[in-house]
C-alpha cells in the first residue's frame, strides 16, 4: 500500500509541504538567473506541483529496494538512478513549460534565459527526490511497525481465547457429575472416604484454576495435576483404573503450557479405561531426548479409541497449544499399537519461563 496515497488525509499535508519548497525554488531562480519575482513564481510553483506528484512514484523504488531486505549499495544505486531519471524528466517538463510561458507577452523571451536555470533545476530535482524517497521510507517503516503491533495484539487475543476455551473445556461436566454421584454414594457407606474424595476433587479443581492462569508451569506441576485427576477417577473406577508414572527427574523442571498433559490423561480414562470391561493401566512416561522432552500417555484401547491421528477435541486442543507455544519445534503423534492407544508429545526442554 502506498504510504501517502492509500491513506485519506495524507496527500494534503504532503502537497502543503511543497509550498515552501516551491518558494525556495523561486528564490533560487531569482538569485541565480536574475529573473523577476513574477517570472520566478510562475515557473517554480507549477513545476513544484508537478514534481510533487512525480516524487510520489518514489514508492516503487522504495518498495523494490526496501531498507530491511535490500543491501545498502543496491539501495543507493537504485535511488540515485531513480533520482537522476526523475530530475531529467522534471527538466524536460520545465523546458516545455518555459517555452509555453514565453508565448505570453509578459514572460516573453523567458526561454532564452532557461539554459541558465537548467543546472539549478537538475540539482534541486535530485535533492527533492531524495527527500521524497526518505519520506517514503520513513512512512513505510512506520506502517510496518504499526502492522507488527496490531499482529502481535491479534495473536495475543487469539492465544487468550484459546486458553479460555481450553479452560472451559477443561472441567468436563461428566467428570463433575459422576464424581459428585460417587461422593453421594460414599457418604452413607464410607464417610471418611467421602470426605477424602471431596478434598481430592477440591484440590484438583483449585489446582486447575490456579495453573490455568499461568503462562507456563513446570512439567512436574502439570503431572501432579494429572495425578490428582486420576486420584478422583480412581474412586469411581476402583480396581479398574491403575496408573503408572515413569518420569525422568531431569525433565520435571521443564516449562510447559499449563493443562497440556492433563487432557491426555483424561482422554486415556474416558476413551480407554472406561471402554474396557476389566479396565487397565494408564502409563505416563517422560524422558529427555537430546534438547527435547518426549512424553507419552498410553492406555488400553477401548472400542471408542479414535483411530491413529485422532480427531478428539482434547487431542486437537493439545496440538494447537503445542503449536502456539513451540511452533514447528513440537510434535504430537497419536496411534494404536496393538491393543494400546499411545499419544506421544515432543517439545523443547526449556528451563526458564519463556516470556
Amino acid at each position, binding site marked *: 500500500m502506498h504510504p501517502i496515497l492509500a491513506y485519506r488525509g495524507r496527500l494534503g499535508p504532503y502537497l502543503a509541504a511543497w509550498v515552501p519548497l516551491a518558494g525556495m525554488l523561486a528564490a533560487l531562480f531569482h538569485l541565480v538567473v536574475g529573473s523577476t519575482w513574477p517570472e520566478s513564481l510562475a515557473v517554480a510553483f507549477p513545476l513544484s506541483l508537478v514534481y510533487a506528484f512525480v516524487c510520489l512514484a518514489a514508492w516503487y523504488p522504495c518498495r523494490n529496494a526496501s531498507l530491511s531486505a535490500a543491501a545498502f549499495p543496491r539501495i543507493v544505486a537504485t535511488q540515485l538512478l531513480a533520482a537522476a531519471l526523475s530530475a531529467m524528466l522534471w527538466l524536460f517538463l520545465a523546458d516545455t513549460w518555459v517555452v509555453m510561458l514565453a508565448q505570453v507577452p509578459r514572460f516573453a523571451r523567458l526561454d532564452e534565459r532557461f539554459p541558465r536555470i537548467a543546472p539549478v533545476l537538475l540539482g534541486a530535482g535530485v535533492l527533492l527526490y531524495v527527500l521524497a524517497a526518505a519520506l517514503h521510507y520513513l512512512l513505510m517503516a512506520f506502517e510496518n511497525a504499526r502492522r507488527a503491533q496490531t499482529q502481535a495484539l491479534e495473536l495475543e487475543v487469539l492465544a487468550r481465547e484459546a486458553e479460555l476455551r481450553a479452560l472451559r473445556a477443561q472441567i468436563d461436566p461428566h467428570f463433575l457429575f459422576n464424581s459428585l454421584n460417587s461422593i453421594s*454414594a460414599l457418604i452413607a457407606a464410607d464417610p471418611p472416604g467421602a470426605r477424602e474424595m471431596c478434598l481430592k476433587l477440591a484440590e484438583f479443581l483449585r489446582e486447575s484454576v490456579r495453573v490455568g492462569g499461568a503462562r507456563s508451569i513446570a512439567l512436574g506441576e502439570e503431572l501432579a495435576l494429572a495425578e490428582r485427576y486420576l486420584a478422583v477417577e480412581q474412586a469411581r*473406577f476402583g480396581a479398574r483404573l491403575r496408573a503408572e508414572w515413569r518420569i525422568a527427574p531431569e525433565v520435571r523442571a521443564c516449562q510447559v503450557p499449563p493443562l497440556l498433559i492433563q487432557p491426555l490423561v483424561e482422554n486415556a480414562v474416558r476413551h480407554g479405561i472406561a471402554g474396557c470391561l476389566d479396565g487397565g493401566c494408564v502409563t505416563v512416561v517422560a524422558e529427555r531426548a537430546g534438547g527435547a522432552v518426549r512424553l507419552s500417555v498410553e492406555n488400553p484401547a477401548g472400542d471408542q479409541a479414535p483411530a491413529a491421528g485422532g480427531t478428539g477435541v482434547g487431542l486437537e486442543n493439545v496440538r494447537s497449544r503445542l503449536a502456539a507455544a513451540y511452533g514447528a519445534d513440537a510434535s504430537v503423534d497419536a496411534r494404536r499399537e496393538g491393543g494400546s492407544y499411545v499419544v506421544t508429545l515432543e517439545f523443547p526442554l526449556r528451563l526458564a519461563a519463556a516470556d
Partner: protein
Amino acid sequence: MTGEATRPLRVAIVDDEAPARALLREYLAGVPDVELVAECANGFEAVKAVAELDPDLLLLDIRMPKLDGFEVLELLEREVAVVFVTAYDEHALRAFEVNAVDYLLKPLAKDRLLLALDRARARLREGRPFPVAEVLAAARPAGAPLARVLVREGSRVHVIPIEKLDLVEARDDYICLHSAGNEYRKQQTLAALAAQLDPVRFVRVHRSFIVNVERLAGIELYAKDSRIAILRDGTKVPLSRAGYGRLRELL
C-alpha cells in the same frame, strides 16, 4: 400405593461404576415393595440377568464399556420397563424427551428415584409397552451406519464387527448372520438390518440375502437370465435381477 397383596417390583441395577451401584442400592433398600434382584457391572451381565431373572424394571446406565445402555435395550427383545441413569448426554436426553421415557440424572436424588419407581409401576400395571424402537431410533446419531451387529443367544451376547460380517440371510421369522464360518440367529427383519448397514459395503442382492461386497469372488451365469454370486469361501448366493443391477451399479 397401599400394598394390598401387591407383588414387589423386581429391579435390576446396571452401572459400570461401583459407587453408583452402591448409591442406588442404598436408596432402594428403604423402599417398600421393591426387590433388588441383580446388580450388573456391565451390559453383558445385564443381558444375562434379564434372561435369567426376568426383572420388571432396569435402572440402566448409558455409558458403559463394550455394550452401552441402548445396546442392552436392543438385545433384550422382551418387555421390561427401563429407567435410564446418566450423568449428562445430549443425545440420550433428546431421545428421552421425544418418547417421555423416564431418566435420572447423576448425582442421583432419592425422591426423583421414588417418582420414577412409581411411574414404572403405573406403566407396568396398565400394560403400556416401553417404546424400545423409538428410543433407539432417537438415540442413534442420524445417518451413521452400524459399526457392529449384536446378537443374543440365550444369556450370551455376540458382538460381530461389521467388517467380519460376510453374509446375511433371511429365514422364516429371523435372520441368519454369517461371520467367519459361524452362524448367528437374530430376531430382526432383513429390511430393518439393511437400513442400518453401510450401503457402499453391503448390498441386498436378493429378497433374502445381503452380501458384504468385499467378500465377493465372482458372478456366474447360472441359467438364462439368472446369476449367482460366489463368495471367497465358496458360498453361492442367488442374485435377483434387481440385486444384480444394484451390485453392478456399485462395482
